[in-house]
């Protein structure tokens, strides 16, 4: 078609600027997303630190499974809570999304903006959760490798962010401008 240069764009720096701006100015509304992640990561980290104490009362061959199940619970609760709050956060922005699309934003731009925002929120939550979990774990006399746990906490938080943000972001990104502008929240 020879039209490949006629493509609307969203430079990455601009996307980051918009996301950080949005987070800063809407912190009150999106705190719930951060809290969901924070609580779950704190739960997971503290359990890991306390695993040796917990394990002492469980038959040795069941310890691994038991800890895995606890981690899994933390993961599912975090993913469900985060997805729920992200769905609400994104639904509140349908008008904004419709507006951006009517001025040239493409689906991928909307998806990118929402995913970046969700990832930043979950990383913040993951780090806060790590600190709180560390405090609780050590406070109750647990022990473990803090560096490994930091990696695990952030890794799990990012994974939760990716999983729970992709569906609502995808759904919002592919809405037509009219649909997005018509929604009353």
């Amino acid at each position, binding site marked *: 078609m020879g039209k490949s240069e006629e*493509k*609307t*764009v*969203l430079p990455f720096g601009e996307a980051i600027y918009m996301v950080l701006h949005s987070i800063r100015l809407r912190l009150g509304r999106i705190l719930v997303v951060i809290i969901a992640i924070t609580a779950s990561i704190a739960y997971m980290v503290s359990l890991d630190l306390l695993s040796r104490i917990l394990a002492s009362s469980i038959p040795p061959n069941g310890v691994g499974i038991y800890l895995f199940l606890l981690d899994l619970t933390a993961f599912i609760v975090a993913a469900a809570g985060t997805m729920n709050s992200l769905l609400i956060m994104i639904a509140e922005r349908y008008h904004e999304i419709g507006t951006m699309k*009517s*001025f*040239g934003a*493409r689906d991928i731009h909307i998806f990118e903006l929402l995913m970046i925002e969700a990832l930043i929120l979950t990383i913040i939550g993951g780090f806060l959760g790590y600190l709180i979990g560390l405090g609780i774990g050590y406070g109750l006399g647990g022990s473990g490798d803090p560096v490994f746990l930091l990696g695990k906490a952030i890794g799990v938080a990012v994974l939760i962010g990716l999983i729970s943000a992709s569906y609502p972001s995808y759904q919002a990104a592919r809405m037509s401008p*009219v649909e997005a*502008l018509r929604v009353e929240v």
Partner: protein
Amino acid sequence: MVEAQVKTELVPRRRKLEYVVEVMDVKKYYKLGKVIVKALDGVSFNVKRSEYVSIMGPSGSGKTTLFNMIGGLDRPTAGKIYIEGVDIAMLDAYELAWLRANTIGYIFQTFNLIPVLTALENVMLPMIFVGKPYDEAVEKAKKLLELVGLGRFIHHKPGELSGGQQQRVAAARALANDPAIILADEPTGNLDLVTGLKLINLLKKINTEQKVTVVTATHDLKMVDVSDRIIWIRDGRIEKIEMRRDIEAEVREE
């Protein structure tokens, strides 16, 4: 040879266009349960370059549906819409986004500014989407905000502006990429009488000074005074098309 001929035929019509918007027998049907609702039932009209056209009709008449389709925001069930000679039904997602960014400037009833961005950043947004260099975008946005009389409010957020001011920011944003058409859906719907009148005058000023075609969907009768033509829609069909000079003549006769 043959191949070349076929190719030129496939290229969207780019002749010197008299009409910016061509609406040809457009229909839009919705299925509501077992009933088919005919929101638009065969509407045809053209809009000339630099013309100011108002689509008027009661709520539910189909004017917003028509407006959305002219803007490429919705697709018709049948019929064709050409914007600048391009059949918008033939455009893919990329081309449609490009059209929305460059050829059309929207003004909505609810202003629809991005709440976390300043007036300046809101006006810059469409320019960012077309890849305009940042500094140029800032300069252009400042000029446009001055044009709409908001030179002193460029760093205000929408929440810090009155409804009339927000709608003027929206007008500046609509002009960001020098569009061929401004589409305004009930632009005065959320404004009081005086600010509504100011906005209408601003739209007329933009229309005459910038030679931008303006199409509004409205039931604000104040709009009649500035429109070159009024298209009355009722029950998804064109009831009548009036030229303003005819209306003025009628008034004089009475």
